[in-house]
């Protein structure tokens, strides 16, 4: 017998009966409930689904030339409905099928969040002649075509709880796009902060969004733009590269957050400039690094693999493939070249969307784009967009996800 004895009712025996009766009580509750058909989706899930679609079908509403080598594509939701509201600065990952290759590229949404209600996002695609996708888009996309993309992604957006009231945005070339979105968002009262964009271009003629930037600045006293020309010296423009001094000059004495978006070379240059400012990490935020195209220039690269081709064994949802993989390109690119459809979004090692199991072999992962979770390192999980084969390799890759009920 236990040493303590409690009862709740007056008679312990009845308490016990009550215990024994629990199934009866439960059955009674079940019996009393209606047999109306069960609801297959709840309102919160509906809201979430509309806000976080896995993919969106667009139709190209128009394409506008923007500066000498950029085009702005106006995407309209195919069913005419509203698009998910995004945080200005976010991007979409656009599916680009080219021949048998199924690849994706990220483009910042450069229009106002207000247009999302009308089912419209703008993206701007700058031509990079050495690239695979941007010339293809520029030469092939036309009005009326269907485009499939992810929902809004990414973390380069203003967070009032975290960021300083003033943001100094450092933009290079097409890196202006997230800040266009932010400028419109401020103008249209979706965001509330001071935005000073220091915008680097080669020449005055090469400036994208010149007119639009001028217009937003005129319409809204919280947005300022400083143009910096690297290849031209002109009155009314700063000259050279974006430097610590320039940031100091326009950042002022108070607290400010730096947001950066531009080519990798710009980040590499700015890293040392920004270091001179002695800012805390929280005040320096950068857009995705982008896919690394020169792994051999990254610290730790095993020089002997450069130029070699390995066998890549891919397991994907019950199917298996053997494909060639160049040590100069990521495992993701190898899969795409071979016509496999794999999950991809940021292509910078950051978002984890391409999280896969390394079954065997060695890979090289540049430190700059190593966004793995700690336990992944113990258990051999990798992000294939930022892993380069260093031997024959076998991986288990997830499917590209689709929306379901």
């Amino acid at each position, binding site marked *: *017998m*236990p040493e303590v*004895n*409690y*009862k*709740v009712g007056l008679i312990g025996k009845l*308490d*016990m009966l*009550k*215990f024994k009766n*629990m199934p009866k009580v*439960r059955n009674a*509750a*079940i*019996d009393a*409930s*209606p*047999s*109306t*058909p*069960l*609801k*297959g989706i*709840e*309102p*919160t*899930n509906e*809201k*979430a*689904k*509309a*806000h*976080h679609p896995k993919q969106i079908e667009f139709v190209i509403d128009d394409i506008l030339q923007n500066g000498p080598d950029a085009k702005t594509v106006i995407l309209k939701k195919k069913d005419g409905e509203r698009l998910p509201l995004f945080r200005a600065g976010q991007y979409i990952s656009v599916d680009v099928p080219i021949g048998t290759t199924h690849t994706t590229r990220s483009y910042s949404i450069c229009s106002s969040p207000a247009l999302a*209600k009308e089912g419209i996002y703008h993206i701007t695609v700058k031509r990079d002649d050495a690239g695979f996708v941007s010339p293809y888009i520029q030469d092939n996309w036309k009005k009326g075509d269907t485009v499939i993309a992810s929902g809004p992604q990414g973390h380069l957006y203003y*967070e*009032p*709880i*975290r960021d300083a009231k003033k943001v100094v945005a450092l933009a290079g070339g097409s890196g202006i796009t997230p800040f266009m979105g932010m400028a419109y968002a401020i103008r249209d009262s979706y965001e509330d902060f001071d935005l000073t964009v220091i915008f680097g271009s080669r020449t005055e003629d090469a400036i994208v969004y010149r007119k639009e930037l001028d217009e937003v600045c005129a319409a809204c006293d919280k947005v300022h733009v400083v143009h910096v020309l690297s290849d031209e010296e002109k009155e009314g423009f700063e000259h050279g590269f974006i430097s610590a001094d320039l940031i100091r000059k326009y950042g002022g004495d108070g607290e400010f957050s730096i947001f950066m978006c531009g080519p990798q070379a710009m980040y590499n240059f700015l890293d040392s400039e920004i270091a001179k400012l002695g800012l805390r*990490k*929280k005040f320096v935020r950068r857009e995705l690094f982008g896919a690394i195209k020169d792994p051999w220039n990254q610290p730790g690269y095993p020089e002997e693999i450069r130029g070699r081709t390995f066998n890549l064994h891919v397991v994907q*949802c*019950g199917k298996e493939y053997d494909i060639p993989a160049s040590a100069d390109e990521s495992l993701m690119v190898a899969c795409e070249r071979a016509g496999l459809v794999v999950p991809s979004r940021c292509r910078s090692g*950051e978002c*984890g969307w391409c*999280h896969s199991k390394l079954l065997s072999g060695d890979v090289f992962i540049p430190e700059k784009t190593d*966004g*793995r*979770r*700690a*336990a*992944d390192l*113990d*258990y051999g*999980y990798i992000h294939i967009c930022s892993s380069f084969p260093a031997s024959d390799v076998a991986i288990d890759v*997830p*499917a590209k*996800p*689709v929306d*379901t*009920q």
Partner: protein
Amino acid sequence: MPKYDAVVIGAGNGGLAAACRMALAGKKTLLIERHNLPGGCASSFRRGRFEFETALHELCEWGTAEKFGACRQTVVDDFGVDLKGHIVPENFRVITTASDGKTKIDATLPCGQQPFIDAMEKYVPGCRKSIEDFFKIGTEFHEAGDYSLSVNGKTDPAYMQEHYPNFLRLGSYPIDKVFNAMKMPKLAQDIMGTYWGYLDVAADKLSFLQYTNMVWLYVTYGAWIPDKTSHELTTGMLESFRKHGGETWFNCSATKILFDDEKAVCGVETTCGTVETKHILCNANPTMVYANMCPPEVVPERMVKLHNAREYSARMFVVYIGLDKSAEELGLHDYSVFMPESADSVREYQSGKTIKDNYNMVSVCYNTVNPDFSPPGTCVVSLTTTFSGDDWANVDEEDYFKTKNMMANRLIDRFEEKLGVTIRPYIEEIEVATPWTMCNFVNTPQGSAYGYELSGWDSMMPRMMMMGTEFPVKGLKFVGASSIRGDGYNSAIFSGNTLARKTLSEMKEEEEG
């Protein structure tokens, strides 16, 4: 068509445990998961130099190096998962106003029965006996549970009456009634009830049996966290599954369950193809599965009624914060602090129905227990509140970001005020998860994390007592928070393990004809 002995739908804690158990028994098992990661709720994500724990505050039933809890036995001994972690030395600190509406409560309760009892006596002089008895009753409950398991649920009533009379007498009551019967001082009841939010049922409906069981386990075996977040635990289970021959398809959703002429499961249709199987262990929510994935004629009317009678439980709201100062520098010493407006859980539960009224919250600072949880000179704090209603369904998308931040600001302000600390200027990374976020990542109905409300008629004990009739569709069993033992890592793992064992014995019977 590929054929499997069993298919597990969903790789949350429940699904992972079920999958491990099946693979360990040598069964050809397929695990499918709609997301690209294992874990469901139990995961992690990275922002900048921080990795955030998505859910876990305290893992229950883990134990110490000398004394293994049942959950640890399953995961470490049985599944062979190698895990490193820290024991949480304190169960909780609670800062609130007593249910009398006046008395201020600020109490810190250490793990271990004796230290816990001593601390309670310090805060509420004269309560010692009732707390001691509470733990004695807890021990009795625990032994009754072990006995029941040892005889496979076929308990002998006379034996039960003789050895576990409190279990039988108190087991059907809510905690408020039993605490009163035990003559526990009201202030002590207020403190002892602190963990109600872990089950999201207020004291007037919260099963004394289930609650005591949970508190007893937390205090007796201590609480535990893995060093590298829940992702270490769930990836560890996934790897054990793979090692034993299990196959996994990620980014793959089950869309339809297939049945034969006898209304028994014969396969699953997924977004990555159709597979044949006679046994499904399902970690996806039963209501959703019955409604969307089964033809109506195979779903017994009783299941429709049962699920119409149930309410979803605990829609989560979490603010994840990475700070660029150490916990010490910021004066953060407590691991987990409960800060409801009032110790009156009935009132708090009501306030949890709307965004406007919900001022409840629990904070966790991981670095106070694991100093290496984030880079040197930084620390991670998460602020969590649960919603007992579906107000987030009323938020218009246009107001979503504003509502999110309004709620996050409320929690940050309260955290600073209640603990007398300043964290705002040091926020380097912040992410806010709402019930919408939960819907997106785990796809539970209404963004709930605890399955169905464990209140009164549908609490753990009656669910367990009726396990035999709980899964009437042949070949389809549900595991995880919505299953027989309710929410929590340990309970989800328990249900996965238990129902996989049940499936194994059914398979054996089938083989033997």
